[in-house]
């Protein structure tokens, strides 16, 4: 498995995938506080034209919360980009047949799947941490993070949502033949869950709720309110992994 992990690392670096993703997440990390910082200036620049339309702008108060609001608005986009870029991680190997020499050397399919899963979970974690860390750093420098409640709980819950999406991606990668099928499956499942969470009863335990970190920051909710969502996400991740191992073992390469 270690050898295959090393191969994944080399693949990510040499195909430029890791650099692109790192760039995107770093940019997002910087953008959140930058946008917050720029808001008053933007408002001022626009105030004259806004006044013409009858809108009166007053002094805008920005703080760490404005930046965190940006963070929770942007991170789903970051996740979508991540999924788009890694959607071919398995299927490109099926299409080209590059796994055949590997499997026929006696490396177990389990090891291949495990290495890829570890790598995907790991890279989501690292990229997310980088984005969060940058925003956190800037916020602490410009304002005060103390204004936001349950900061780390909110961040961890959104991270769990990402893990849940990656688990879906791995499952669909184990059963599909092409990256478009993977995207359709993962996107469809995530969108389905998102739409279902419109119903408050379902929302209470669907993973989609984990994305709404702002409720926690504003202390509208407490971390304990999310136990059911975390448990459901955890179960689904587990189920996805078990099914993936089963399907990948029987997959025609």
């Amino acid at each position, binding site marked *: 498995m*270690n*050898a*295959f992990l*090393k*191969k994944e690392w*080399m*693949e990510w670096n*040499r*195909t430029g995938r890791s650099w692109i993703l790192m760039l995107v997440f770093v940019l997002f990390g910087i953008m959140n506080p930058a946008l917050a910082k720029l808001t008053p200036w933007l408002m001022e620049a626009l105030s004259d034209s806004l006044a013409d339309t009858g809108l009166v702008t007053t002094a805008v108060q920005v703080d760490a919360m404005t930046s965190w609001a940006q963070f929770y608005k942007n991170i789903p986009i970051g996740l979508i980009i991540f999924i788009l870029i890694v959607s071919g991680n398995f299927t490109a190997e099926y299409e*080209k*047949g*590059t796994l*055949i*020499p*590997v*499997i*026929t*050397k*006696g*490396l*177990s*399919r*389990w090891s291949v799947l495990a290495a890829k899963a570890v790598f995907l979970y790991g890279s989501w974690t690292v990229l997310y941490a980088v984005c969060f860390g940058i925003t956190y750093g800037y916020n602490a420098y410009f304002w005060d993070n103390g204004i936001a409640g349950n900061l780390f709980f909110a961040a961890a819950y959104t991270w769990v949502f990402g893990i849940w999406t990656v688990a879906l991606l791995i499952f669909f990668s184990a059963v599909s033949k092409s990256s478009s099928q993977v995207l359709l499956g993962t996107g469809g499942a995530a969108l389905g869950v998102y739409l279902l969470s419109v119903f408050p009863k379902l929302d209470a335990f669907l993973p989609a709720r984990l994305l709404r970190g702002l409720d926690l920051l504003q202390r509208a909710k407490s971390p304990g309110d999310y136990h059911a969502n975390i448990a459901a996400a955890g179960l689904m991740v587990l189920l996805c992994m078990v099914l993936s191992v089963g399907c990948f*073992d*029987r*997959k*025609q*390469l």
Partner: protein
Amino acid sequence: MKMLSLSHVAKNFGEKQVLRDVSFSVPEHTVFGFVGQNGAGKTTAMKMILGLLPVNSGEITVDGMPVRYGNTPTNRFIGYLPDVPEFYPYMTPSEYLRFCGEISGMPAKETKSRCEELLRLVGLEKEKHRIKGFSRGMKQRLGVAQALFGRPKLLICDEPTSALDPAGRKELLDILTAAKEETTVLFSTHILSDVEHICDEMAFLHEGKIALKGSLDEVRKLKKASAVTVEMEYPEDTKALRQAFPFLKAAGKNSLLLEEAERLPELLHWIADRRYPVMRIERQEADLEDLFMEVVGK
């Protein structure tokens, strides 16, 4: 000792029956030719030996162990060269071979020496570029190196010579012959001269069944007595000969083909009695090509 055996293996893809009833075995330290037309099911059979495709019925064993679809432990004994080998394009050949050593759990020191040895064997030792820009022939060479890497007990090559130029083909056949000392080779092909050059045993796959199998000599003996061509000096003699022996077939100017070679003495007697001048009497060489044609019924 049998390295590989297939017994009553059948495979269908939906309605299409690809293999009906395939049974053969490959003894240790032989080069075994697996011959058949394009689409005869050679690749399918090989993929089943590797556990890459499920069998519908029958059993396959490698070194006495049954092959399972999916994760098969028998793959530890096998080196495989696919018909169109594909490798990670961002690696160099030596990086790829090192990766092969790592996934098969070979110690680092041995991996390094084996890597150098094999790159030299296939003539890629000076190649420092990434696999991305490789031609099919170069990939084929690397394919041979990776297949031999773990010193497999059984080497399976799927049409290894089809992408190579004549020189490369000769080299590859030499490599396979040399590999016989250490391993057992099963290779598929539709190029019969390759079989004649290097195989000890062979099997013809036709219409989902093994139509012929055995050692090269045995298979050759199966061929009926070869046809004989008789060429006469004068057209009128040819005509007379043909009238006397209506089963002769015309085979060009003044030439006649005798398919039932056992009647040759009769024919010669007749010619000798009449003192007809003969240009040439030639027995046609029995080669695998004819045999192949006979088997496939064309």
